[in-house]
């Protein structure tokens, strides 16, 4: 089965050599999503809660384009530019993943592509063959 590129229409084509998402064998892998709006402008400058909400919206956009929902997510990796954002990110994250069976997750502190970016999130989902 060939891999399928997931490029939502309302998401800019990445300037760098990657796809917003890849679907293969029932799995969907998203690229790390930052808090860009549909025009590629960073939202929520200085506001980690707002950025987290936008990152997760972008993940949902990719999942939807690939035929999945947030309930299909197996695992996320959260990159925070400063681990002190942990609680604020979690509060917003828990609003998005609001079920009892939340995905697995790792959270690491890592400087992101631009200093205004406070959080980046990637996800792996499974929807079966």
């Amino acid at each position: 089965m060939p891999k399928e590129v997931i490029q939502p229409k309302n998401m800019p084509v990445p300037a760098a050599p990657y796809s917003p998402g890849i679907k293969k064998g029932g799995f969907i892998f998203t690229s790390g999503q930052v808090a860009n709006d549909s025009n590629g402008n960073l939202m929520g400058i200085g506001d980690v809660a707002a950025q987290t909400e936008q990152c997760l919206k972008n993940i949902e956009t990719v999942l939807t384009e690939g035929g999945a929902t947030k309930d299909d997510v197996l695992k996320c990796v959260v990159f925070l530019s400063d681990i002190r954002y942990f609680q604020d990110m979690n509060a917003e994250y828990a609003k998005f993943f609001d079920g009892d069976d939340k995905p697995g997750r790792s959270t690491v502190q890592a400087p992101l592509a631009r200093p205004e970016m406070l959080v980046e999130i990637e996800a792996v989902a499974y929807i079966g063959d």
Partner: protein
Amino acid sequence: MPRTVISSGDSVAIGPYSPGAGGGGLFFLSGKAALDSSGNVIAPGDIAAQTEATIQAIEAVLADAGGTLDDVVKTTVFLSDMRHSKGMNEVYARKFTGGRPARSTILMVPPAVDLLVEIDVIAMIGE
């Protein structure tokens, strides 16, 4: 179905890990970097050459699992400095063509001073 551990004769490991392991068609490769068989950094300070060597090392491990770069679905690129992203992307774009993998790129504290890039990949082979 049991997991498969990729044993790669010429793959450089600098710790207690395998070059990769797979199950259910998914293969998780260990992070690769521009290291020679003694663990020395190849092309210190040269992001293009290091990216090339890193992706060649990934290709070698994928080949041992019966795959190619086309089977890669997700990568994580670790850079020692975001200023290297342009040089990395130029080589990366040449190696990963058509149906480019999903990717996250983050900064790392490099394990060796002159090491500029490390890449880990997930591939789906034979599905």
